[in-house]
């Protein structure tokens, strides 16, 4: 039984409501995809920390998928002998209630990604110790989230284009 299969079995036993799947790309690299409901999101993170203390938090990705927002975290586990388990944890939150529990006490670096997700797509992380903006400038308007694809995204009049001389000459000169 490979590392991945053992891990998947364990996840299935511990979290029956999770959707687990092993995918393999064309170079034979296996990745574990876990879809976890947000109620067990925090419990799952604690489980990961217990499963392997050196769990490596690579990146968190926030994405607008229409009615809801996806929040995906990419982990690397059991990497003493390469390759480790590459794990992607996906949580979906509805847009009318975009709240997720904060996990920065389990994985300290996650706070940076949570701050980014808060300003870029408007997920609210409950009990996050720091809710300041990370990348957006201070004079950026409130209530506009640049990565949203709906009416809360960047409005048309905020998009600037330096212009092509052909079009400029035809218009003004």
């Amino acid at each position, binding site marked *: 039984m490979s590392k991945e299969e053992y891990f998947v079995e364990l996840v299935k036993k511990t979290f029956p409501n999770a959707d687990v799947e092993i995918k393999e790309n064309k170079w034979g690299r296996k990745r574990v995809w876990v879809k976890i409901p947000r109620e067990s999101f925090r419990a799952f993170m604690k489980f990961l920390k217990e499963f392997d203390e050196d769990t490596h938090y690579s990146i968190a990705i926030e994405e607008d998928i229409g009615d809801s927002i996806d929040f995906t975290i990419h982990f690397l586990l059991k990497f003493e002998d390469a390759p480790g388990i590459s794990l992607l944890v996906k949580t979906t939150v509805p847009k009318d209630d975009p709240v997720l529990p904060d996990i920065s006490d389990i994985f300290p670096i996650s706070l940076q990604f949570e701050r980014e997700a808060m300003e870029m797509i408007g997920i609210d992380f409950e009990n996050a110790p720091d809710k300041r903006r990370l990348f957006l400038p201070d004079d950026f308007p409130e209530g506009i989230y640049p990565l949203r694809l709906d009416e809360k995204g960047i409005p048309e009049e905020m998009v600037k284009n330096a212009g*092509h*001389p*052909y*079009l400029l*000459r*035809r218009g003004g000169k």
Partner: protein
Amino acid sequence: MFKKPATNLFPKTEPVPVPEGFRGKIVYNVDKCVGCRMCVTVCPAGVFVYLPEIRKVALWTGRCVFCKQCVDVCPTGALQMSDEFLLASYDKYDDKFIYLTPEEAEEIKRKQEELKKAKAKKSQ
């Protein structure tokens, strides 16, 4: 200390020669262009503006990032990369950066209409 300096005194001498396949300024051949819009699709920097009435493109190479994708995708070879790389200028809308000004576009349009008329007469 007793060796010659290993430097190139540029304005006094020629610059370091460019290698083969060097990506310099784009050269656009208007007559070869068939207006397939492939370069407009592929350009990452917005150099091209498509002109539907004459089926050509207007270029502003001041924005070019020299990625050569338009040259690779052009089916007729109307776009080529030259060896030219000394492109400093005081004006970003300098003539050397612009292919196909509105005046040239007008002239091409007139010529195309004349051709059409001549063809129509021939067929009659």
